[in-house]
Structure formats: C-alpha cells, structure tokens
C-alpha cells in the first residue's frame, strides 16, 4: 500500500518534506506511528521537545512496533527500546546500542523539522 496521508497545512509543506502532525499530537517521551510516503515510521518527542523519526519495523522481530517502545537515554543519547525483545537504539542515528544478545541491526532514520508547531519529516531517509 502506498498512500500518503498528509495533514494538509497549505504553505507549510516544503519540497522534499511531508507535514505529518502537530507537535502537540505527540506525547513527550512516547512514540507514535505515522504513515509517510506509504511507509510506517515511528515518531518520538523527547522531554526537550526534539522530534525523531525512525522506521516502525522492528528489525529483530519483523513487527511494526517501534513507536510503542520506552523512550529514555543512554549517556547523552536519546533512545528507544524495542517493546518486543528490548534492543536499544539511538534515536538520532538509529544505531543499535544494545542488541540484547543478537547481531546488531540499525534502524533507518529520517530528518525531522518542527515549523510553527507542525512536524515535518524528510521524504528521503538519512543515508546510513
């Protein structure tokens, strides 16, 4: 299925970016799933109101669940832990910080931008 579901905010959507939701739609320190360019992403808002976008697919379990993980920190890195088998990822880079005994696999990430209270996600993922 490839459907863009975009909260139309005329004048705000920039070329190459998709306006997804208002930042207030995201709860601090929790994730939410979003459909962007037909792909399931997981958006996270930290307690400092930074917003990150990573793939919703949990590479270890094959289920689309990353947005339901617990948000936290490891040292300076904002993190999410997979709700399935508890691998921990750096939200900024998608790097797997704790593979929980498995072969580490990263998450794909997308650039985000919050403008006038609207969360924009880049159409192009950040190159690994």
């Amino acid at each position, binding site marked *: 299925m490839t459907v863009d579901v975009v909260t139309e905010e005329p004048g705000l959507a920039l070329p190459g970016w998709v306006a997804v939701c208002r930042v207030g739609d995201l709860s601090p320190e929790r994730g939410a799933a979003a459909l962007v360019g037909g792909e399931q992403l997981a958006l996270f808002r930290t307690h400092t109101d930074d917003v990150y976008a990573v793939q919703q697919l949990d590479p270890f379990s094959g289920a689309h669940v990353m947005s339901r993980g617990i948000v936290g920190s490891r040292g300076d890195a*904002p993190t999410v832990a997979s709700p399935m088998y508890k691998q921990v990822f750096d939200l900024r880079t998608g790097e797997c910080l704790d593979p929980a005994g498995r072969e580490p696999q990263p998450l794909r990430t997308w650039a985000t931008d919050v403008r006038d209270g609207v969360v924009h996600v880049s159409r192009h993922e950040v190159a690994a």
Partner: protein
Amino acid sequence: MPQGSPTQQLVVIGGGMVARRLIDALRSRDEAGTWEVTLLCEEPRAPYDRVALTSYFTGRHPEDLALGGQDLWDDPLVTLRRGVRADRIDRDARTVTTSGGAVLPYDALVLATGSYAAVPPVPGKDLRGAFVYRTIDDVADLRAFVEKRRGELDRPVRGAVVGGGLLGLEAAGALTALDMESTVVEFAPRLMPLQVDDGGGAALKRLIEALGVRVRTSTATSKIVGDRGAVSRMEFGEGPALDVDVVIFAVGVRPRDELARDCGLEVGERGGVLVDDACATADPAVWAIGEVANIGGRCLGLVAPGYTMAEIVADRLLGGAGTFPGADLSTKLKLLGVDVASFGDAFAQEPGGLEVVISDPVAGVYKKLVMSDDARTLRGGILVGDASAYAALRPMVGRELGGDPAAYLLPEGSGPAPVGDLPDDATVCSCNNVSAGAVRCAVTEGGCTDLGGVKACTRAGTSCGSCLPLVKRLVTTELERSGIEVSNALCEHFELSRAQLFDVVRVQGLTTFSEIIAAHGRGRGCDICKPVIGSILASLGTGHILEGERATLQDTNDHVMANLQKDGSYSVVPRIPGGEITPEGLIVIGEVAKDFGLYTKITGGQRIDLFGARIEQLPQIWKRLVDNGFESGHAYGKSLRTVKSCVGSTWCRYGVQDSVGLAIALELRYRGLRSPHKIKLGVSGCARECAEARGKDVGVIATDNGWNLYVGGNGGFTPRHAQLLAEDLDTETLVRAIDRFLMFYVRTADRLQRTAAWVEDHEGGLESIRSVVIDDSLGIGADLDAAMAGHVDGYEDEWAAALADPEKLRRFGSFVNAPDRADDSFAYVAERGQPRPATPEERTSGVLIAGTTLEVRR
C-alpha cells in the same frame, strides 16, 4: 572386560542418595555410553533426600524430598527398579538375583545398601508405638500412629527418643513438630557425644530444654512396658520411670552388609564391606560405597564422604584412578532450630592444640576453635547456638587463620566477619566437593554472573545448602575482581535498588518520575527503571497508570493494557475471578471474539485469552466487555494475575472448604495490585490439591480446621513448590497473613524477582519472613495492613477508567496522522478453524487467507 560388547552392565544395589550420585556422576561423564546402569531400589520410590527427612513433618510432601530432576531416570541407559530388592549375588557367574526372581548379569556391581537403624535389645522394643527413624515410610508410620493416638487419648501424646546423637535430636524435632511432649534419653553424659565436647553438650542441652524438650543424659533404657500391646512406660537403669506413648530408637546405624557376607566378601569386625581407598573390594568387579563401605577401618554415616566414594567409583569405572582422600566428618546442622557445627579436630586430639573458647549461657552460644600450638593454624572447632561462622571456618582447617582467632567467634553483626582469602584448593561445598577455585573459575571462565549461575555450573550449595553464604561471598568478590560491578543499582540512571527506591518514594511521598529522577537519579530513564518506577507508583496507590507523565513509564503492555504478541497485535484477557463464569459471560466473550475475529484459548489461570486485536480495536473490544460487566484481568501487568481454584466443597464429594468462594474473595481483594513480578495464587478445597496451589506464589489448601498457607511457589523455567508458612488458619487470619506477605514482598523484592527467589534471598529465609508476617517481628504489621487496605479501597477498573477519558483513548490510534487506518502489515492464516499469524514463508508464498481486517470465519 568383554571385548566386542558395546555397552557393559553396571548393577547398583540400594537406592539411596549415594547411589543416585554415582549414577548421576557416571552418566554425566560417560559420554560414549559405555555403561548401562540398573538401580535396584528396595523402597518404593526413587532415591530421596534422607538428610531432610524431618522436614516431612513441617508440611513437606514426600515428593519434595526428591533429589534433582526426573531426567536421570528418563535416561535410556538408566533403569530404575523401585520396590525391588537384591536377594543374592553370584560372584562366579556375575549375576544378581532380585526379589522378583530376575537374574541380572553384571560387568560391575556396586553395593550401596546403606544402613539399617539399630534397635537395642531392650524388652518391649517391638510394642506398637516403637519406631526407628530411617525412611520415608518410617516417618509416615510415625505420623499416622501419633495422629491416631491423639484421637484416642484426651491428653497430649507423649514421646521419647532413645539416643541423643544427631539422629536422635532430628527425631526429637519430629516429635516437636507433631506437637508432642518429648524427652531425649542419652546413655552418654552429654548430647551429641560424637560431635561436641562437654561444654558444647551443656550448651546444647540448655538450648533444647528451653524449647520444651526434656533431656536425660547418662541414662540407660532398661525396659519398655506395654499396655494392651502399645507402648506405655519406659524404665531406666536408675531414675524414675517415664510415661510415654511413642518411643523412637535412634541409637545408631549398622551397615547392611548381609548380601556381601552371603557371597563371601570380607566384612569388617563391626560390619561393613571392606574396601580399599578406591572403594574396591577384593573382587575386581565389586565395589562398595556409602554407609555400607568399611573404608580405612570404619563405616562413615555422613552423606558427604558417601558422595566422594560415589565420585571415585564413577571415575574408576571410566578408567580413572581416583582415591578416597580421607573423610571430612565436619557437620553443620540445625536441630530443633538450634545450630550445631563440628569440624576438623574438634576434640583437640592432635597433641599441642590450643583451645579458644567462648561460652555464653545467657546468649545461648558455645564456640570453640582448636588451634595449632602457635595459635596460627586452625585445626577444628565446635559451634553451638550460632554456627554462622562455620561456612568461613571449615575450609580454613589446616591453614593459617590470620588475625585473632577470637574475632571469628564474636556474634554475627558485631564486626565484619573476617573472611581470609580462601586458597583455591579449599573445599567450599563438601557435599559436592567443590573447591573455592572451582567457584572462582565458574565466574572468571565460565561466564557465571550470579549465584544461581554458579550453582547450576558447579553444583556448589545444591545439596545441604549450608555453604551458600560462603559461595555467595566468593562469587561477589570474584565478580568485583573481574571488574563486573556487583551493585544493587537498578540501571545507569539509578544507584538504588528497587527496594531502596520503593522506600525513598514512599517515605518522601514522591508521585512523579521527573521528581524521582531529579532527586535520586540521572538522565531520562530507560526501559529498566521506568517500568519499575511506574510499578512502585502504582503499588503506592497514586492513581491510574496512564495518568499524565506516568503513561510514559509503562511498557507497551501496561501502556495499552493488553499483551503484545509476536506480530505486533495484542491479546485481551477479561478477569474471571476464581475461574467462575456464567453462561451469559461465556456468550459475551464468545461474541466479542467472533465479531473481532480473535483467536481464543483457555489460559492456565482459568480464564480466556483473546488474540489478534489491533491497537485501535482495543477500546472497542473493551467497551463491549466493560458494558457487559467484565473488567481488566491485568494479564499485561506485573501484578496479581489469577487465583486458581478447584470446585471445592460446594460440589466436590471430597472438598472440605469452599475454595471457589475464597478464591473469588482473594482475587477481588488483590486485583490490580502492582508488584515486582507477576503474582499467582491458588486455592484447593482439600489435600488432593486439584488447584495446584503449591505451584503458586501464594497457595492455600483447605484442612478440616481451616486453611494451610504456602508461599513461594512458581512454575516456569525453575519450578518451585511453595513452602508451608502457617497451618490451620481461620479465614480472617489467613487473609491478614496473605496481605502482609504480599505487601512485604511488594516493598522489598528486587525488580522481576518472583516470591520464590525473594524468599530464598531474604536474610534468614522463610523463617524470617514467617516471623515478620505471622509474629510481626519488625513491628510493621499494622503498616502493611494499612497499605493493603489502601489498595483495596483505592481499586478501580483501569479499562473502565480509560474508556471514560478521551485523552487516554487517544493513544490507541493506529497512526498519528490516520488514527483509524488499520496497519496493513498483519497477515493471518486459518488453523483448526481459527486465525494465527502467517509465517514468513507463508507471507512470501502469498497463501494468506486474511490481511489486516482479520476477516476469518465470517
């Protein structure tokens, strides 16, 4: 040995602890399977823990005395023949004839026939009411007799034990456990004459008399007088006669060497099959181990040297050259709750020894260390009343103690217990012959990171357990040395353990994660500490788990109040208290399952699990359930799960109490109680135990007089039977005891520590927990009661509350920018008429019958 025969036959005669150890050792080392083993076991059961026999009287069942698992007996190369005696050995033909008439050929034969209890030739020894103390059947007969006599007499049943040694005091413990008046009669001038000296014997006598057991030393039993065939009075060489109903003979054991005598093997002067230091008899095909073996001129009545002999024979059978190093006769026991330990040269028989003695009749302790003439090297010792130093001292025998020996004898807690650096070759666990080096190695090379791992890997502490404190200290020290931090810290964000954090949050009245981490932690938390704090706040009754910031602490299961499954869908479990449900209730659940296309399965906890719900369907499903009178089953939480019950006295022909009624009351009382791990309860309406209550954290079993309460059981990876906490309670007392047990657990257990491990790790173990819960030894009973009352009063159904709050319902949207659009990644196939997640192969081959909408069976 015969050539061309792939496997050789080993016959072991006698099914005791030592025989089991032999077979266990042989099977774990004989990887090529060169030996096929047959064990002839005269008793009708597999080898059991004879050392723990007395625990049979404190509520344990015969099965609890089983040694290790069933695996050994399932081994195809091992045949266990229960209830089969060996009648004859033909050494020329190399065969054993059994009581059933079978003739078993052997290539090797091991005699492990043990001992029988000696009965002195006093008149009256065969009267009804005279017993020995050796097997499960002996103790079962004793118990049955006492219970019968109790019904016949309108006064307490009176008992006496002939013999004040180790076994005699064990037997006196059994009489005490049976609520009998008891007297110990010892021929020698002191109790335990083989283990302790006069000073120790005197201390022991005082301690035991303080427990209400009368002691008569230097007394010879001359006659037992009967009345209508049953024991009624004992008469002695001197002193007044004693009216008794039961006499137990515990004057010692004699080796069961008659088979050996009959086939011409040489036996010792006072019995026992003569063997060399390889446990071999004069016949190269015949060995003897355990109490029946006469090794170095004596028979040894302790299990540890028996285990050593078993290991030696296992080694020899596989071509090894192990020899018996001499017996370590050290013992540490808890008799009638009194610690007694004796080790090394306890009687200072070696010349030139110095004795350091502390004798404190007020505190009820007697401690003696025997040192070399320069007061440096430890030779042995005796500890009565407080044997906590035993584990550290025993391995130091023959070594320099370092420092003032008296420091080792000071009461526990009066200073740091000096634990010298144990040499690697010092034996830590004498039951299983594990050295300090082996324990260290399990940490440094075996990768063990905790006590449990080391126990599994080395078997240290898995028999009598007396060395566990020492093993634990060794493991901790070694982990620290290896740079593996042994801290109670919850995670990188909190230095505190869960129990400490619980106290801090409770005492300071903190209610938010931000406050707690600002005051006591660092960073922004993680998937370890956040759910712990969410759980602590919930246990303290701070309101709905999804209220405000608390929602960010919850694991996905608690966050959406359902159980995440492997494909990202959830399962839903409505509460069915006590497993009792009306036909109407069943129909509602059935219709919900049908309308949402859910897979249904009955759980182990007597309720119904509905699988395959998408996140955005959960509120709709729960609206239907709540509208029809159901509430959250908390299957997703670390909290009370279920109270399982049998049907009980309302229907069952055998039930003696209303187990369903109690189960429902308990489930409604503790529902929603957040805890360090899941909690399961069970209630059985009679001793048949159909609710499997002893596999639960809290198990209640009906008796004619009320309820017996068991705690600390679980199934799972390490199954445990719950242990008896209190007997014959009325319902009110029972509920208060459970309240306190659960609340004490909630406050003090580690993260994800179930009650079994909590009880085991708790300082002082079950005894200490019993004193807190039943006797209120810490004076926190009223506080625990109030906390539980607060929980009961504050309960609300989490799902009903969530359905009434649009803000909470928002988090159930599938996508933030398309809350009602179904996730299209689900795929299901039908199996046995119900959906299940498609396998990756099924997904790629495209044989799916249903996608996201789960349109199965419509």
